């Protein structure tokens, strides 16, 4: 199995590990057993049964998760393990930082997917094949975000472009390192929820 395949499958296995850590059973485990439980779930999701693992099945459906998704999953996993270990604070990133990223991903998804699926002649996906313009836009956005004290967005963007630079995944397109469909759906839902909540607060 190549490094690319292992990363692609591991990203999807992380989702299952996080879900498993939500089980009441997992909260009752002591520290060493919890780590063993995490490894057992990770191994089980990657274990081929009749030639195909659960992660492989999901990979066929949704493809590889972007670096942004993997970053969110890893930090969510770290936060969950810290929480279960009785540590202080549960979130790795502040709510504002997460919302900034979700808003960014939502806007990108709405700009990318409809046009990439055939509206008009212009295909924004094309700009991801070594497009300097896209990189400059992402760099400026990252620096602006850092200046405003929001660090999740620049971390995700930098991780994505660094992974693209070294050819981490099968894809040669920057967009595939930046966003993916499950993340886009999650981000849009979170953004809309945050906007509705803000309106509700304004009314009160």
């Amino acid at each position, binding site marked *: *199995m190549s490094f690319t395949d292992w990363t692609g499958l591991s990203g999807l296995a992380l989702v299952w590990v996080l879900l498993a850590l939500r089980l009441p059973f997992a909260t009752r485990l002591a520290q060493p057993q919890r780590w063993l439980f995490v490894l057992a779930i990770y191994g089980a999701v990657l274990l081929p049964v009749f*030639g*195909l693992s659960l992660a*492989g*099945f*999901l*990979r*066929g*459906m*949704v*493809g590889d998760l972007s670096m942004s998704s993997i970053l969110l999953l890893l930090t969510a996993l770290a936060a969950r393990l810290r929480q279960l270990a009785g540590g202080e604070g549960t979130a*790795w*990133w*502040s709510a*504002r*930082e997460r919302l900034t990223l979700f808003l960014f991903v939502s806007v990108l998804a709405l700009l*990318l*997917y409809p046009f*990439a*699926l*055939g*509206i*008009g*002649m*212009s*295909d924004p*996906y*094309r700009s*991801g*094949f*070594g*497009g*300097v313009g896209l*990189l*400059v836009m992402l*760099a400026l956005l*990252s620096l602006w975000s*850092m200046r405003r*004290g*929001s*660090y999740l967005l*620049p*971390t995700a*963007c*930098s*991780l994505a*472009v*660094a992974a*693209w*630079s*070294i050819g981490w*995944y*099968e894809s*040669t*397109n920057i*967009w*595939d390192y930046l*966003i*993916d*469909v499950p993340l886009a759906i999650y981000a849009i839902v979170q953004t809309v929820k945050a906007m509705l909540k803000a309106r509700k607060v304004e009314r009160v």
Partner: protein
Amino acid sequence: MSLMGKYQRLALLAFVLTAFSMALFKASSWHVAYGFRLPLAPEVKIPEKAVVVKQVVVRKKGRRQTVRVTETIAPQGRIDSHFASSRFNVQTHAVSLVELKDGRVRAFWFSGSREGAGDVTINSAVFDPTKNIWSDEKVVTGRSHTQRGLHRYISKVGNPVATRAPDGSLWMFYVTVSLGGWAGSSISMMTSHDEGESWSAPRRLITSPFMNISTLVKSPPVFYSDGTVGLPVYHEFISKYAEMLHLDKAGKVIDKQRLAAGGQGTLQPVVLVRNEKEATVLTRYAGKDEAPRAMGMTTEDGGRRWSEPTKSVMKNSNAALAALVLPDGKWLAVFNDQERGRGNLSLQMSSDGGATWEELRRLEEMSRLRGATLDEVACTDLIDGLVRSSDAGLEADAQRLASHVDSAKRWVRASGGCLFEFSYPYMIQAHNGDIHVAYTWNRTFIKHVVFDSLWLQQRLKGGK
């Protein structure tokens, strides 16, 4: 407020600057070349006229005399046909051809219990022109093999397209589906360094941001001036349109160009390269026009920009077509010359860049039967005749002939009637000038028609 400390923020800044510097460095060396590379002109050997010396007995002044007479016999062009596939009672479809280094021709197609079934495999066989026979077919890959190689779920495979790679190896592209129908296809590729005898594990091409779905392949690639490859592909999810993938010499995607907007119904593009700068793309038409015609797009700057799609004069019944440019600039095409159905297949030539077409030969003609009611005996007789005329070699083997007829009957009489279908043509010109045409024959077999340059010349001179 952020949860990061001062040193963490500095470390992040360093990471941001390093990551973007690396990416900009990579992007600055990203080069997509335009301008087409013309294929090598074939070495055509037209046989010379044969001179035959005969001794003829004549009477001269009442005496018998033997006189020597020399006769000049004009060589005859050659056209021949065979079935390339050899499995019975399966559905067989979507052939492509590639010439091997020794002059043989390798074909690829998919076959299984039905199109899209889990047991469908990509098969291959080799045609030896010196012996005029096809080898037995062998399985190249299938659903399970592809699934293991790609480390992801695959539900079906199809549409293999093979080409000679820039490094001399063979590449085979094919579509794989994990979810839904053909509109959910992605392209995978395999490499062979021994002319197709063995293949590497498959590798996935990532061509779409939306779960990498809906990029399909059907037609032969073209080459750009720097040796990179243009792979004509098409999109089917939600809307249908033609695209061009640009692959580097290692087969990695370096660009994707939209050749037509969604909703214009352009599928399965075929590229006709006229010179380094000019090319035309002809596509299957999947729109709702009452008088459906193949669509055409042109470029005059080596593929950098393409014109808006316009209707060509070629009838198109939402069916794939094959075309190529001959060394003298004439275009040769194989297509269903009808607006509905796929009951005929016509070989035509254009001397004016596709403005007009002249039929050279009707490769198949059963469209007149459309709507006719035939009983089983009459239909079987028709199939029997078609099988015999398609592959003369079967005459000597009654059992194989009967198996061919039985297999074909399963498709032709599937709806209870007598419906013939000839589709998905593919055409190449070999280095000796021979033209090889292969197509799906009633979804049952792959039929191969080969003719030489002399036959083509003789057809053009009017001797149809």
